[in-house]
């Protein structure tokens, strides 16, 4: 390996010790992970939290439940293919599914800004109603707060979800094994680009819509089809790269990706090229990676191909016998290899 292995593609590296919170601390990159490790994990330390998964699996009387919570802040509130309401339902439902849990119920808390039009709120509530019905999960409890004008982006939503984990199911980063194969259920970068297009004033020959969707069905199809699934992770902030790096680190394994196997739509690629962004790091809301035992890989693919959200599923990489644990490398389109590193913070459009 030449020095190339040790470059990162984020320019330049930020100073890490900020006295105040930056937007970048919520960007799904190094700053956010540093904040979580140094602040939250250090303070709240406990075994379920140490798993570093999207939700926690807890022992309850005679069974196991999964618990997950997530806040949703998005500008604009409405974007092609979804809105803050669909995100708030699907995001938490998906986090439960990634624990192998069948979602049972959601709670929803609303922080409303004084002056928010009732019509806007009603649109979001109806979206949540539709998304919850589509995912087959009721919203059973909630909370409402109103803040002064100028203190919120119109509307913030926080959802929490409970799910049941069937006996014998154990899905978490620590179960990943050498030789495991990575499956991805479709093309990447759509959600982030759909939102950014609205912000950047881009238009499309055919509109890019968010991939926002509940992933319960394809995940349950895999699990109930008897596939040995070791870990699941939905690709949200930080994109495909962020998710795979998180798992590689939590599991202490080396993951090798194949760039040419990762599908990106031409218009998403075009928008990324133009803004100097890497689709690997762009947000998704209806995509997940599954780490499955190699002997089950082909069957897992065939199962996914039979589901609406897995029709484009592919194998995109595998877990190599560790060279360096916690490392993700990728065979590039020209057949060379490079490290895939976590970005510092949010991906910013660049001119360099």
């Amino acid at each position, binding site marked *: 390996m030449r020095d*190339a292995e040790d470059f990162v593609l*984020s320019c*330049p590296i*930020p100073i890490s010790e900020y006295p105040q919170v930056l*937007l970048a601390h919520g960007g799904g990159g190094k700053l956010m992970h540093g904040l979580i490790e140094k602040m939250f994990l250090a303070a709240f330390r406990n075994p379920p939290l140490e798993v570093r998964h999207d939700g926690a699996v807890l022992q309850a009387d005679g069974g196991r439940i999964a618990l997950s919570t997530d806040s949703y802040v998005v500008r604009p509130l409405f974007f092609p293919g979804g809105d803050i309401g669909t995100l708030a339902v699907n995001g938490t439902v998906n986090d439960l599914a990634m624990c192998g849990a069948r979602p049972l119920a959601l709670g929803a808390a609303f922080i409303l800004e004084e002056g928010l039009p009732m019509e806007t709120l009603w649109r979001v509530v109806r979206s949540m109603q539709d998304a919850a019905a589509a995912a087959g999960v009721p919203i059973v409890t909630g909370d409402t707060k109103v803040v002064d004008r100028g203190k919120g982006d119109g509307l913030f939503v926080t959802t929490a979800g409970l799910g049941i984990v069937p006996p014998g199911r154990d899905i978490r980063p620590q179960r990943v094994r050498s030789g495991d194969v990575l499956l991805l259920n479709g093309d990447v970068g759509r959600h982030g680009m759909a939102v950014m297009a609205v912000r950047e004033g881009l238009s499309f020959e055919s509109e890019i819509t968010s991939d926002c969707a509940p992933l319960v069905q394809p995940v349950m199809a895999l699990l109930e089809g008897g596939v040995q699934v070791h870990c699941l992770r939905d690709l949200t902030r930080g994109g495909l790269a962020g998710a795979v790096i998180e798992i590689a*680190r939590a599991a202490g394994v080396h993951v090798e990706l194949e760039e040419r196997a990762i599908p990106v739509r031409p218009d998403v690629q075009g928008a990324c090229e133009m803004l100097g962004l890497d689709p690997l790091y762009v947000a998704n809301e209806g995509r997940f990676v599954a780490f499955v035992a190699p002997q089950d890989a082909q069957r897992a693919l065939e199962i996914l191909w039979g589901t609406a959200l897995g029709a484009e599923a592919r194998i995109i990489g595998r877990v190599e016998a560790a060279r360096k644990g916690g490392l993700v490398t990728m065979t590039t389109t020209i057949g060379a290899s*490079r490290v895939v590193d976590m970005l510092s913070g949010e991906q*910013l459009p660049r001119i360099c």
Partner: protein
Amino acid sequence: MRFIHEYRDARAARRLAAAIARTTTCPWTIMEVCGGQTHTIVKFGVDELLPPQITLVHGPGCPVCVTPLELIDKAVEIASIPGVIFCSFGDMLRVPGTHGDLLAARARGADVRVVYSPLDALAVARAHPRRQVVFFAVGFETTAPANALAVVQAQRQGVRNFSLLVAHVLVPPAMEAILASPGNRVQGFLAAGHVCTVMGYEEYRPLAARYGVPIVVTGFEPLDILQGVYMCVRQLEEGRAEVENQYVRSVRPQGNRAARELIAQVFCVVPRRWRGIGEIPKSGLGLQPAYADFDAERRFGLAGRGVEESTECRSGLVLQGVLKPPQCPAFGTRCTPEHPLGATMVSSEGACAAYYRYRRVPAQGAL
């Protein structure tokens, strides 16, 4: 995408790499000047395909990294003035000044906005006529026409609340500074294709002749860079030192006349400090007197103020390939990616940052 994907073909890349290997008989050090090319090399792993005798040195061609400390400090200061809207390309927000970066200024309440184009900043100024809107005009010759046009439009449209904090730098003087230094090891250059798209490549001929180095104007896709290296190696092996153009689909010998005329109308050549290298004469652009009203440094009373950079930083020598990063006394102790003293540690594409990561695998959760 046409004109992108066909230049990322694995077989063609191997074919070029094999040709380079067949042609190379001894070690050569070639510098790609442009940070955009460095980005491609790193992102696609282009250098992995090269024979071990070829060393690519990453040049000072990242305007983000070479913007001097004093201008970053002025940007943070202007952005922090109540009522100012400070617009910048995204990549400038993380560059550390003496007292933090623009991201930190934004966290303290400054109105800092990322724009895609200087015309977007001008539109912000039109939309907020009662607020001062400042655009951080960084970049090489490539970006200068866009910024010049924004100034001309602002003047024509009578937009008085718009100004530029100008940090423009020019490539040929920096190349000459590298070549003229006593310890220079660079034997051939890949010149920056998009700079030459604007400026042409006639001004490189005297450099090639005077210093006896081949200069190949090169594009930005993996095959472009491999072909540029191949053309450069052929010249070196044959003992030639000419200016050649690999990037013919975009670069004409005279560049873009309309763009050059507008640059000359709005900007004049000034001395400029480069972060980690120091002052290089005639290496920057400043606003012409006719457009001095649009100079943010004058408008906010910051002209002529300088900041002493760390004298410890040896990045100038590193950029010339004279010094390996670990040989710098500050390396890894007083100078790290988190607290950089100079350009090569500021940018993650810089040689020092690369070495730092190479010697020290980042610990889990380390920032």
